[in-house]
């Protein structure tokens, strides 16, 4: 049974449809990527899975529980088993690196400080930032902040982690570090990972399965190899990063020639 089962998901912002009949299965123990152009609602999908947004139609089940039918306290219990890595890291800026990682442990457990210290150091060691524990979030680079956030996300030993655009704006070294960490964490901790991204090369490197989203629908899904071999022009454009194709280079509107012949607009 998949860990996450999304069926006939519909979600609207005002009159704009973000999702129209999306079905997704996220298998346990695997790295599943949700990819698509900017503005296709990838982050929104993670917020729907986490219960921060409600779908207009359809269901989302996580570990057999319908997220949007749960009471507030049950939802919070479920969230303790879900980790989420925000694009910005979302570290608490008034706490040090150490206190950020200790935060979920202090909030949800009665462990003594000595044990919390051991756990925090273990998690920071795993992301290579044990010696940065006394720094403040403002002193970290973007990549370091994401690694601290990752240590925090796994502090409570969750069953799954959702990564929101983990590679955006990273230099090649921290990009490589993050790719490696996501892969390693998933295997070492027996996690299920969902990576939302539009960085094709990095994501395809670690993903076991990929869903391609566009215009509120799943355009294609399969393993990275299957997608690369796909006959769909749209999939080829996206996977190879071609500037023009089914997704046009020009924003929709009248022809350039027509526009040039309409000087009265600026009169």
């Amino acid at each position, binding site marked *: 049974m998949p860990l996450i089962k999304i069926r006939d998901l519909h979600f609207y912002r005002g009159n704009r449809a973000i999702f129209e009949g999306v079905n997704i299965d996220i298998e346990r123990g695997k790295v599943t990527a949700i990819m698509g152009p900017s503005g296709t609602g990838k982050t929104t999908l993670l*917020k729907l899975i986490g219960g921060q947004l409600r779908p207009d139609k359809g269901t989302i089940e996580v570990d057999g529980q319908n997220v949007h039918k749960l009471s507030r306290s049950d939802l919070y219990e479920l969230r303790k088993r879900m980790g*989420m890595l925000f694009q910005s890291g979302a570290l*608490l*800026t008034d706490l040090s690196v150490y206190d950020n990682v200790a*935060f979920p442990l202090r909030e949800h457990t009665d462990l003594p400080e000595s044990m919390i210290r051991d756990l925090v150091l273990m998690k920071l060691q795993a992301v290579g930032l044990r010696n940065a524990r006394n720094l403040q979030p403002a002193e970290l680079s973007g990549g370091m902040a994401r690694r601290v956030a990752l240590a925090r996300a796994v502090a409570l030993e969750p069953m799954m982690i959702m990564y929101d655009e983990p590679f955006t704006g990273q230099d090649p070294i921290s990009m490589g570090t993050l790719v490696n960490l996501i892969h390693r964490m998933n295997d070492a901790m027996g996690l299920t990972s969902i990576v939302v991204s539009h960085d094709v090369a990095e994501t395809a490197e670690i993903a076991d399965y990929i869903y391609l989203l566009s215009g509120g629908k799943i355009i294609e899904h399969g393993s990275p190899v299957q997608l690369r071999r796909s006959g769909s022009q749209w999939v080829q454009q996206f996977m190879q990063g071609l500037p023009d194709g089914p997704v046009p280079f020009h924003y929709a509107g009248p022809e350039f020639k027509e526009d040039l012949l309409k000087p009265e607009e600026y009169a």
Partner: protein
Amino acid sequence: MIKLIRSLGRWGLGTFERLGRGHLFLMHILAGIPGLFLRFSLVIHQVYSVGVLSLLIILISGLFVGMVLGLQGYNTLVDFGAEESLGVLVSLSLVRELGPVVSALLFAGRAGSALTAEIGLMKSTEQLSGMEMMAVDPIRRVIAPRFMAGLISMPLLAAIFSAVGIIGAFLVGHGLLGVGDGAFWSQMQAKTDFYDDIMNGVIKSVVFGFVVTWIALFEGHDATPTSEGVGRATTRTVVHSAFAILGLDFVLTALMFGDE
């Protein structure tokens, strides 16, 4: 004409919707307050940033308001040969009105705007969302302690404002203008009633603290998560707080002193 009616309707709906959201937000905060007694250190930390850090502006403003009140009051009273009553005039105006009102306005400018900016930025940097995803309710963990801190700090700041103001008036009245110190203090003691004057001022300052902190926290929590949105929310906090303070001051004064 239709356009005007339509925009008026939209404005009205928007305002009532915000009012509703504001009240739901308040209910959520109030529900979180009992849990704070188990973790009072969270509140104490906030009393420092909301209250203690506002002390300087309260002390300096209080001193100058008191000194001006001493000068102005003396100049008026001396015409009637009643300059000995300077202490009463100063203490009543400070304890009943100026203490709670001016310190609340300063509190809104200093602590209220800081609260809105802080919460607004926490929202725009996804810290509040992050907390929710860690199964920590941000309203109980972040907002409620700040609300409680505002509620505790405001009456104390108003009391300090009034006390420093009276000292300022005494320095001017006695030191500069020669009002007898015995008359200044004894008349003040005789004519200032604990329940009718001091407690009424305290009630006002508690109400102002409640309203200003509520407005500041709500504006931060409701802010559009962009730098422009946070900037606008901070301005709204100061403006709405000022309206609320002055409007409520009239209502409270009418209720408490109206039958005298």
